């Protein structure tokens, strides 16, 4: 390796065989280039999908009670499950650090809502102040419910943007107006906006008010949670699934439901739903690896072919060198030394070009489902190493054969 004479001999050879060197180098460099770009876009696609998904992917988890479908501990199937405040509070207590926001929800039934003389047919729901964040609702006017409202059983209401338009369209602001719910005046304190209009047709009042004023007792219709953000997407999914499963079995125990009876208490995790996407990205990853490995194989075959041709082309030269007294190992060494040198240099050039391109262009790629295509440096480096190794092995055998046949056989080669 540090034989200066050998290096000089190799540089001579390279300098005087520019075309051969160029073609070898070009094929290696372009192989690496294509591979890195491919892997980069594979990653970009993963990034893109993860991103699309993270936007609305609330790490939310919802609990919907239903009816038991199995007999369990002497209880008949067909029993309706009713969630209670204690279910919510206990679980909250036990899992404080795993929960970002949480809110029980109580649908207020058997009420009539009017504004002035106008009867309103919107649903009224009792929720906690945190519900705003779970629904990702933005306040367009006023404020959302707060803890004080809750503690004071305040008769305040937050309405959706759609209601504001339909009912209070002529007012400058509906804040401060009163609506009448079953004879009780509720003051409007805020207007919220959501992605979907359907979700803007609700009126939220404090849970406490809903339960105490409208005979709700401690009944809860459903539970909603969001989980704190995780380091990675995969981790978030894992945590959501664990949270969901544990929450479900906690509630099953609390209500004496068979563990297998998943329909009695349904827990739905947005992230788990997203497993579809998750496995999609996994398949995409696999696909790109498959394509990448095919590319590497093509690269290996290409480099090997070139090495075979190079050695074949040099067989006569090998014969001449041997006739002049070259030892077999010095010939094999010379050919491989040159091959490794050329493939390494061109491999790294291909690597630098492709990674530079990804670095420059990557962040500006704004196509749906593709985001910031990039490639793992160590993956790219291993690819170069694989190609160098392949070139070396592919060059070794013909070189070894040419260096070990009778000199006259090598010389006769044409």
């Amino acid at each position: 390796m540090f034989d200066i004479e050998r290096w000089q001999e190799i540089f001579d050879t390279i300098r005087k065989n520019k075309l051969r060197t160029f073609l070898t180098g070009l094929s290696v460099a372009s192989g690496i280039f294509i591979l890195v770009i491919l892997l980069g876009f594979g990653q970009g696609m993963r990034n893109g999908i993860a991103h699309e998904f993270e936007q609305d992917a609330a790490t939310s988890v919802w609990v919907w009670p239903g009816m038991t479908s199995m007999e369990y501990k002497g209880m008949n199937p067909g029993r309706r499950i009713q969630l209670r405040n204690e279910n919510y509070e206990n679980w909250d207590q036990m899992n404080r650090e795993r929960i970002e926001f949480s809110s029980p929800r109580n649908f207020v039934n058997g009420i009539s809502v009017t504004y002035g003389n106008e009867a309103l047919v919107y649903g009224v729901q009792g929720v906690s102040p945190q519900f705003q964040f779970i629904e990702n609702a933005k306040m367009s006017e006023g404020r959302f419910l707060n803890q004080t409202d809750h503690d004071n059983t305040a008769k305040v209401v937050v309405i959706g943007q759609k209601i504001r338009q339909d009912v209070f369209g002529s007012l400058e602001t509906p804040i401060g107006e009163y609506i009448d719910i079953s004879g009780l005046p509720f003051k409007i304190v805020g207007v919220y906006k959501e992605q979907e209009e359907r979700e803007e047709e609700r009126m939220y009042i404090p849970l406490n008010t809903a339960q105490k004023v409208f005979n709700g007792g401690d009944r809860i219709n459903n539970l909603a949670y969001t989980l704190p953000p995780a380091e990675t997407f995969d981790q978030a999914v894992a945590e959501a699934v664990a949270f969901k499963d544990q929450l479900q079995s906690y509630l099953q125990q609390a209500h004496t439901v068979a563990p297998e009876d998943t329909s009695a208490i349904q827990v739905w995790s947005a992230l788990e739903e997203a497993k579809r996407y998750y496995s999609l990205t996994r398949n995409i990853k696999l696909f790109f690896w498959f394509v990448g490995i095919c590319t590497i194989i093509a690269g290996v075959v290409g480099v090997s072919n070139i090495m075979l041709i190079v050695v074949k082309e040099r067989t006569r030269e090998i014969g001449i060198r041997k006739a002049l007294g070259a030892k077999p190992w010095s010939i094999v060494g010379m050919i491989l030394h040159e091959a490794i040198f050329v493939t390494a240099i061109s491999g790294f050039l291909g690597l630098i070009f492709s990674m530079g391109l990804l670095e420059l262009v990557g962040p500006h790629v704004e196509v749906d489902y593709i985001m910031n295509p990039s490639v793992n440096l160590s993956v790219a480096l291993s690819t170069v190493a694989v190609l160098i190794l392949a070139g070396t092995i592919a060059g070794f055998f013909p070189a070894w054969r040419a260096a070990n046949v009778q000199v006259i056989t090598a010389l006769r080669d044409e």
Partner: protein
Amino acid sequence: MIEIRDLHKSYQMGSNSLHVLKGINFKAEEGELVAIMGSSGSGKSTLLNILGMLDEADTGDYILDGVKIEKLSETKAARYRNKFLGFVFQSFNLINYKTAMENVALPLYYQKVSRKDRETKALKYLEQVGLKEWANHLPSELSGGQKQRVAIARAMAAEPKVLLADEPTGALDSTTSYEVMDLIQQINDQGNTILVVTHEEDIAHMCKRIIHLRDGVIVEDKKIDQVRASEYVQ
């Protein structure tokens, strides 16, 4: 210097084998200049290649400079080729991407001579063959005679004891042939043992001894009066 005893060589071609050398006995002392003649296909090149260790005999003894050459490792054989033997081919066998000087210097590379010394020596031998001004030319820019002179310079550069030339003038016209023979005679004058394969009577008579090969054996071996090639070269 060179001695072979009962040397046999056959070539395997598919199922049948061709017995080319059928028991050659031959001895050449130091300083001899021997012409090897015979019809085409009589095995002259085969014999010379075995002597030059470019090929191996099937059976028989080969003693080079007192050492029996037998089943040598490639590494040892390489050392003999490098130190003892110089080979000149009918088809020159120069490396086409190397200049005349680099070609001449190549055997010295394998003797681990430093780059500078290699160049000095190569130039010296190129001067001897009258091609100093052509040192930086590629083989493709040289005439046949010039190429063969470069090849001879290359064979001489390693300062071998034995020079083997297989039809060194085979591809050259008669004037150039005589120039090449003049060179070979000069090298021989310096005490080197030289074997020349040739078809041409006049070339053979510029040696000191002629052996004839026919059907794989030596049928004639005679000493002759040498004709100096310089008489034909102006």
